[in-house]
């Protein structure tokens, strides 16, 4: 036990002495989270729109004020018929032009339909799609509630859309679980694989193996500090998510931390596996980035929806541990579900951990022979 504590002290000295390691462990999670949550925000707020109102009646004026008071839009120019719409877009400030056809109110009351045109700047397709969706939502809502009721038109079918678990469609709800998966992968898997292969590269691993320390003690000694630090990181990310971005934790906090612990164990065993294959730090880093970071970002459903991927990638995504972890975290935090609903994902993570450990032991033995 004394031996082991001595080993841990040494490991922490390695970590605290290396500014790059310190930055990755303590600064990176916070910077990433703030960056994704605040800067790279795909939510729409205060987008500038222009109105071309050809009828100037009560209805069009009310719709305009509804749009502006929604918080998504601010009113830029009021256009006149004959103004060059493209010119408005070219100046770059206006993201969408709303055009009301002539005699809007009258035709709505007479025929139950009226023309409104939404022209969006689709040089940024995502924003354009979101803007038009929001705007048509607001307009339809207004027309149904305020107008059509008075008209007593028969058999109106109301489709009401509610976005469950994330009513505001806040993207930060998606980023917090995603970043947690990414950071834990980075610190647990990459940092351990680098720190173990560093000992190999410098020749100190041979000295350790020739000493009375058992291989299992060496591996545990290398891994334990990162287990601790990863756990602190998971906690930090959740706290920032909750207190700065207002992401809820509807489920059990203890269960959430237990699942995070499982994911960390999985990542650590993956890190050990990488270190049994990589002869030096460079290779360990390369494998980690290529085999861990990119798939975590691209294939786990964190950035791009898995449903939209071509079949081969969709199949591949099943092998990505973060994919399952993100599902678990989202379930616990946003839906408040317990183990009953995520037992499958939990078992998959356990199975992966087991496979990585088994492979590491096998590789380690081959290397010793």
């Amino acid at each position, binding site marked *: 036990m004394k031996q082991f504590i001595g*080993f841990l002290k040494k490991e922490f000295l390695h970590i605290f*002495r290396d500014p790059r390691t310190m930055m990755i462990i303590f600064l990176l999670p916070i910077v990433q989270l703030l960056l994704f949550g605040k800067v790279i925000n795909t939510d729409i707020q205060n987008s500038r729109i222009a109105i071309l109102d050809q009828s100037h009646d009560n209805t069009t004026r009310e719709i305009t004020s509804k749009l502006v008071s929604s918080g998504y839009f601010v009113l830029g120019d009021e256009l006149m018929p004959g103004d060059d719409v493209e010119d408005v877009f070219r100046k770059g400030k206006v993201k969408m032009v709303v055009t009301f056809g002539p005699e809007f109110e009258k035709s709505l009351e007479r025929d139950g339909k009226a023309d409104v045109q939404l022209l969006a700047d689709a040089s940024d397709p995502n924003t354009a799609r979101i803007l038009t969706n929001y705007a048509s939502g607001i307009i339809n809502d207004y027309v149904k509630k305020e107008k059509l009721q008075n008209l007593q038109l028969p058999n109106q079918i109301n489709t009401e859309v509610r976005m469950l678990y994330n009513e505001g469609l806040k993207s930060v709800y998606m980023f917090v679980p995603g970043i947690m998966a990414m950071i834990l992968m980075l610190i647990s898997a990459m940092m351990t694989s680098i720190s173990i292969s560093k000992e190999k590269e*410098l020749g100190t691993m041979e*000295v350790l193996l*020739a000493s009375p320390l058992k291989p299992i003690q060496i591996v545990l000694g290398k891994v334990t500090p990162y287990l601790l630090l990863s756990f602190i990181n998971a906690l930090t990310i959740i706290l920032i998510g909750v207190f700065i971005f207002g992401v809820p934790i509807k489920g059990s906090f203890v269960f959430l931390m237990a699942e995070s612990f499982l994911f960390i164990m999985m990542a650590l065993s993956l890190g050990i596996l990488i270190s049994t294959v990589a002869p030096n730090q460079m290779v360990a880093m390369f494998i980690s980035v290529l085999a861990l970071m990119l798939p975590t970002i691209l294939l786990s459903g964190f950035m791009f929806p898995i449903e939209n991927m071509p079949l081969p990638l969709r199949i591949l995504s099943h092998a990505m541990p973060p994919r399952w972890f993100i599902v678990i975290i989202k379930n616990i935090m946003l839906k408040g579900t317990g183990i009953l609903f995520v037992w499958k994902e939990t078992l998959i993570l356990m199975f992966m951990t087991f496979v990585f450990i088994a492979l590491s032991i096998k590789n380690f033995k081959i290397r010793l*022979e």
Partner: protein
Amino acid sequence: MEKVIEVRNLVKKFGSFVANDHLNFDVYQGEIFGFLGANGAGKTTAMKILCGLSSPTSGEAKVASFDIYKETEKVKRNIGYMSQKFSLYEDLTVAENIRFFSGVYGISPADRKEKQDKLLKDLGLESARDSLIGSLPLGWKQKLAFSVAIFHDPKIVFLDEPTGGVDPITRRKFWDLIYEASDRGITVFVTTHYMDEAEYCNRVSIMNAGRIEALDTPENLKKQYSAKNMDEVFLKIARNVD
């Protein structure tokens, strides 16, 4: 004299490649035993087996009178090992390195402090106590690595090409340390491919293609092969075999 290493019919195969072909030799307590051979002759493989870093395919070996198969743990307690790469932690200070390795070998803090003070005084490195290893010159690192390898007073210390990449003067000084250790009764098992170093050993074995071709004192070997120096001995052996 007491035998500290006994090797009988030791064989190590990697697939169909035979790295060690029926090795037989003894090493006696306190001697400096040179393990010579060209690169790839199998000397590092044999050394790794004796240190418990690798297991043999067949044969028997005892190190510090413990069986390398069954008593690996005890073998490891009684040996020191220094690899080609100096094997100290560059980002730790001299004192931290000593503290770590003392901990690994179970040396008590009081003993450690006393030995550390004496060690640094003997090496003239008292001022470097709290310097990072990475900031020290190569010759100092090497001396320290050796001193740390024998800090727990092992019966045998294994040195794997300890003087690679070091100039002749530093090498000579390093050998002074080896003699001191040998005077204290520590057996030194050293691999090298520098033939001038072979002259410093009490006995040398010369390996070629996995086999030990010759084993004797440098004097006897020179007589036997009627050679001026170990370099010639080595070349003659290599030629005979080919």
